[in-house]
């Protein structure tokens, strides 16, 4: 188990190295730079800026310098906002995104798993049809469309909820639904098909033959087995929701990590692009690792060594 853990950590570091390398190369391959603006800077100033941030050094040298900084835990200064650092952006943005993400995850789990169970148990009945129709809509309609519709009805027409900001709990309602809509639908469908498959297994027939009620057959014998595929997708889902949806944060004007990221890309704020990408990748990998370790607890057949 410990050896497996170490192996995974080493693999993560290797993966991160390549993510840094690829992002770095792609970023520099894109035309323009942090100091390319609508208003043309005088060549002297641009030259001075490039000199200051070592952007005139050969790429391998820049890359090496950057790696050394990252290894010291320093993602560097923002090129666009003087006096701000990328570490500062992450420190400001991530807690906001994580808070919204955490609430969304709770919403997703509490909605999707019961939905999937009800749909599976009432397979083919109207409850199943209704829930799966909703889930199909949730999977197919993009979150920004859902967000716009939610704002239109609940904020603009009914005036129940604010259109933007997260100053009170009310501000969370619409972003959470818009952000979690896809995951709720996806996980509900997964839960349904997984539970249906499990219900057809021989050991469920054994459980019935023991004289268990259908309720206990599901709760004691089927659910845990059916949750395994759901847990698999949970790792990436959690990472996704916690690091912030760029679109949803933008629509609801939530100052999360996503907004910094989107802005940094369009402004060629090199260090911010790199920093947020690395942070996101590392967070995703840690979540996947946690989920993999969690498998052992739920499924005794899985042994890591």
């Amino acid at each position, binding site marked *: 188990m410990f050896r497996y853990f170490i192996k995974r950590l080493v693999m993560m570091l290797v993966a991160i190295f390549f993510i840094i390398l690829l992002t770095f190369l792609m970023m520099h391959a894109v035309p323009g730079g942090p100091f390319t603006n609508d208003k043309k800077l005088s060549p002297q100033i641009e030259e001075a800026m490039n000199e200051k941030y070592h952007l005139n050094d050969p790429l391998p040298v820049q890359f090496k310098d950057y790696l050394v900084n990252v290894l010291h835990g320093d993602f560097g200064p923002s090129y666009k906002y003087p006096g701000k650092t990328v570490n500062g952006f992450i420190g400001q943005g991530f807690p906001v995104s994580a808070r919204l993400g955490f609430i969304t995850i709770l919403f997703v789990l509490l909605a999707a798993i019961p939905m999937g169970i009800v749909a599976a148990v009432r397979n083919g009945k109207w409850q199943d049809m209704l829930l799966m129709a909703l889930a199909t809509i949730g999977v197919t309609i993009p979150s920004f469309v859902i967000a716009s519709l939610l704002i239109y009805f609940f904020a603009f027409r009914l005036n129940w909820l604010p259109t933007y900001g997260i100053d009170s709990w009310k501000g969370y309602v619409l972003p959470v639904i818009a952000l979690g809509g896809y995951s709720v639908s996806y996980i509900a469908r997964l839960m349904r098909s997984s539970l249906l498959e499990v219900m*057809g*297994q*021989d*050991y469920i*027939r*054994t*459980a*019935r*033959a*023991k*004289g*268990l*009620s259908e309720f206990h057959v599901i709760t*004691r*014998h089927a659910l*845990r*087995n059916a949750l395994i595929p759901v847990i698999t997708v949970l790792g990436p889902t959690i990472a996704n929701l916690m690091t912030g949806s760029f679109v949803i944060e933008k629509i609801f004007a939530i100052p999360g990590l996503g907004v910094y990221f989107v802005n940094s890309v369009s402004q060629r704020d090199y260090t911010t692009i790199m920093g947020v990408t690395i942070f996101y990748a590392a967070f995703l990998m840690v979540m996947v690792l946690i989920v993999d370790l969690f498998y052992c607890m*739920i*499924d*005794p*057949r899985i042994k890591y060594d």
Partner: protein
Amino acid sequence: MSEDTILQVKNLRTTFHTSRGDVQAVRGVSFHVNKGEIVGLVGESGSGKSVTCMSMLRLVPDTAEVDKDSSVLFEGSDLTRIRGRQMRDIRGEKIAMIFQDPMSSLNPLIPVGKQVSEMIAIHHPEKSKEERKQETLSLFEAVRIPEPEKRYSSYPHEFSGGMRQRIMIAMALANHPDLLIADEPTTALDVTIQDQILKQLRGLRRDYQTSIIFITHDLGVVAELCDRVEVLYGGLIMEEARIDDLFDSPRHPYTLGLLSSIPSVTQDRTRRLKPIPGSPPDMTNPPRGCPFAPRCPYARRICAVALPEFTTIGAEHRSRCWLLDPEAPASNNPFRPESEGQTQEM
């Protein structure tokens, strides 16, 4: 229903509604089981033997429908009529089942000890946790699982197929059921383990007067274990006989075919086993006449047209075959003394 009879199945019909049409898996099966008796249900895959037993406990999937005219009388109640709680009180307590595939019949996420003790807990909630554990351990000992204490908290994947089947048996025996249904319990196992499991089933009958329905396609196992046999084909019982009668004087061509496809130790090795040519009928559209007629070497014109009724041959021996009809001609008829030699030709 005589005093000794604990189970009386009458005209059991089970139909699966599928997208390809209705599959008539069981088409009117009637038989009984006496107290302490071991009855074999024999037939090849798809003959309806498993579905018959699953239908009795209503363990068939939702797509299956048991006909309204069917009845399964067990200890005074009709299992096709009772619902919910009543049925659950019978499952696992009065009638227990051992399933065909021990690899997939245990829940992979629950320790085996817990799965067995759950069987006790469901029907005897008054027993304490410790009591249940002790009973489970002695069951493990009874089915000869080595180091029961240590194995109690092991998971199914840590056991071999034979061991898992023993756990299934331990589970089925937990509440000393009156009737045990064993659905090909030895099919997935090698011969030495098979032998031990058959011994255990015999011991069970001896010690507890448990009745057993033993489902198999292996007449060799039947000969070792059963008192009486029902031979199924195409969702129907073709022949019913006491074990000696079945082997000494089979009265159905299908039984003859099954018997000549058993290998025997004394048999001349240069002689090949004789499989029954052809394959079982498509049950979405079962033949109008005798389902075995298309594969039967003795089939006559009438066999394809009309389903024969049972002919009683002796005490507890009946068979569904036109060749037994008093008007059946003697030529090419294995059941007439004139053509005794034909039996060997099968």
